[in-house]
């Protein structure tokens, strides 16, 4: 996935002089996860560069750049360090188009690694996508494969709307996939049916897709046919794909790493009951992180959602 995103950035830097990439250590170092590796060498220090260590400054200056016609792509080194920029996102990034009645566009992309599973220090493991999704005026995207990462990133850069691009760092290098080297896009706002099935719909995204696939394989052995939906966009959310799937299967489980309360899963459940109440054969379920802080590595296994646990929850839902 790291290479796929790097490719997307390279293609757009190549195609469009207005594209600018910056953030903490993204220049010389190529980012702590090497997502921007080689880009400064190729495009120069004016287009790919290190910023001071100040997230509000990074996001806020990008707002100004976007107003002036550039297409800034900024990196937050970890999503857990994006919060000093929160005011800029909620007060300006998400509002500038509406405030100015479309006079100013906001072609703004904020990339950031998120999620657990890498034995990291505090603040390096959280998943706060629901918070971003709740803010009107931004789009929130989470890829689960290199292909989608590249296509969604190109879409994000080409969009005049602000996009928060959350990268599941746990699978940065975990999934090997040949990715088309050319320019292509994956539309923002469309979920993907990863595999079709008739007994239950499981909705997930990011690093959870892999776990859901493991669970689906286990379920298969029990004769349970799982339909997996990769949400891909947290917002706009693809109601249609969720609705038609759950109308077919009658059962739905949403899986995410983030805390349960006020999380994405509740929204998916709400959509399911709004769209398919009479088709439901079991209550829309969620399997999520606890309402706790992600434990430090020695305790993270308690928090982690494994294929096994998803399988358990699938079976419970199917047997309801």
């Amino acid at each position, binding site marked *: 996935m790291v290479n796929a995103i790097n490719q997307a950035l390279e293609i757009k830097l190549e195609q469009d002089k207005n594209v600018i990439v910056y953030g903490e250590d993204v220049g010389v170092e190529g980012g702590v996860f090497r997502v921007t590796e080689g880009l400064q060498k190729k495009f120069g220090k004016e287009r790919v560069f290190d*910023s*001071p260590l100040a997230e*509000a400054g990074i996001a806020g200056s990008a707002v*100004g750049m976007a107003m002036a016609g*550039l297409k800034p792509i900024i990196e937050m080194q970890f999503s857990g360090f994006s919060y000093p920029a929160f005011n*800029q996102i909620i007060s300006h990034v998400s509002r*500038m*188009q509406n405030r100015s009645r479309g006079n100013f566009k906001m072609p703004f992309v904020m990339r950031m690694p998120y999620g657990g599973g890498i034995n990291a220090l505090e603040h390096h493991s959280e998943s706060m996508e629901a918070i971003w999704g709740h803010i*009107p005026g931004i789009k929130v995207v989470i890829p689960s494969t290199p292909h989608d990462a590249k296509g969604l990133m190109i879409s994000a850069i080409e969009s005049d709307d602000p996009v928060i691009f959350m990268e599941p760092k746990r699978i940065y290098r975990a999934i090997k996939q040949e990715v088309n080297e050319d320019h292509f896009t994956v539309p923002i706002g469309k979920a993907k049916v990863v595999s079709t099935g008739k007994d239950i719909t499981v909705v997930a995204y990011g690093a959870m897709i892999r776990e859901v696939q493991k669970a689906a394989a286990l379920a298969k052995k029990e004769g349970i046919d799982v339909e997996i939906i990769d949400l891909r966009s947290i*917002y706009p959310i693809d109601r249609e794909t969720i609705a038609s799937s759950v109308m077919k299967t009658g059962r739905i489980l949403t899986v995410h790493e983030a805390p349960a309360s006020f999380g994405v899963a509740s929204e998916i459940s709400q959509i399911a009951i709004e769209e398919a109440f009479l088709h439901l054969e079991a209550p829309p379920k969620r399997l999520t992180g606890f309402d706790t802080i992600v434990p430090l590595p020695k305790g993270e296994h308690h928090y982690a959602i494994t294929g096994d646990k998803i399988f358990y929850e699938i079976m419970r839902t199917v047997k309801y």
Partner: protein
Amino acid sequence: MFKTFDPIKNKTLRVIDNEGKIIAAKWMPELTDEQILKAYKDMLFARQADLMTVNYQRQGRIYTYPPNYGQEAVSGAVAQVMRDDDWLVPAFRELGAYLAKGATLQEMFMYFMGYEDGSIFKNAKNFAPISVPIASQLVHAAGIGYEIKYKKKDQVVYTFVGDGGTSEGEFHEALNFAAVWDAPVVFIIQNNQYGISTPVSVQTKSQNLAVKAIAYGMKGIKVDGNDFFAMTKAVQEASEHAKSGKGPVLIEAVTYRKGAHTTSDDPTKYRTKEEEQEWDKTDPLNRFKKYLVEKKLWSDKEEKKILPEYKKEIDRHFVAAENYGEYPLDDVFKFLYTDKPDNLKSQQVEHERYLKWKEGK
């Protein structure tokens, strides 16, 4: 100039005294009599508009409004120097500068009446919308400055903040980014002595606000913000400095908010009549007028003649704003994204269904 008025020495650039007499000819900006007179008249117009807006508000015809009363020379000076192509990134107390940028009073009234359409500013090029979250706009100015440098354009960004705003972290980050990038930004602090009820002494222990420039390795200067000439000189030099690639400049304009913080505020709670009277002596329009009268460029008679014209003009804008008309439902949904997400579409449809039901009742 930046050396002479190095803020560490705590000196203040001042050109005319409270009686309109030139006390430092050396720093008199080069302006024609026409320019000077126009500047005065624009400031007079801005003050008139400001006073009338407070009145409209009292009549319940407009919502909360932050008066500029007493601070007109700061915007007046920027208006003098700012060119069409330059950027203006405002806070919310720079009426004269907005008008100079091409914003209309009608738009301004609409904004404070509660229309987003008041932020379109059809004829104001490179004018960012009014920014309410204190100091948050300053980082935008830094980013715009980066674009100017990157595109090698001949532009400057003028951006504003209050004395209170200097306490915010985003003030710090903005100045630092602009300095590190050598971005052509002129940061103007309107030090009007208060952030709502809070005096500058609660905001900071620094000897003045201009001195904060040192933390960013940029030039700073403290200026009598009620002295149109001093302010113009400072903005001119700052603009030249910034444009020449030498980095941003911080100007502290020392002024006084003669009115309330907003129309919902009551200054008698936190300041004395004596203090207000003391500052009254420095009123930017009075001083300017004395200078003009002395120079025979202006007279009470002319002022008496022109004010009714101004009032009519202002009222015309106000009435146009009042008659702007309906705020269509669609406008609530239309501008958040370039393409309306399904969620928004269905929420709108649902709401329309409710409206139909309501009508049918």
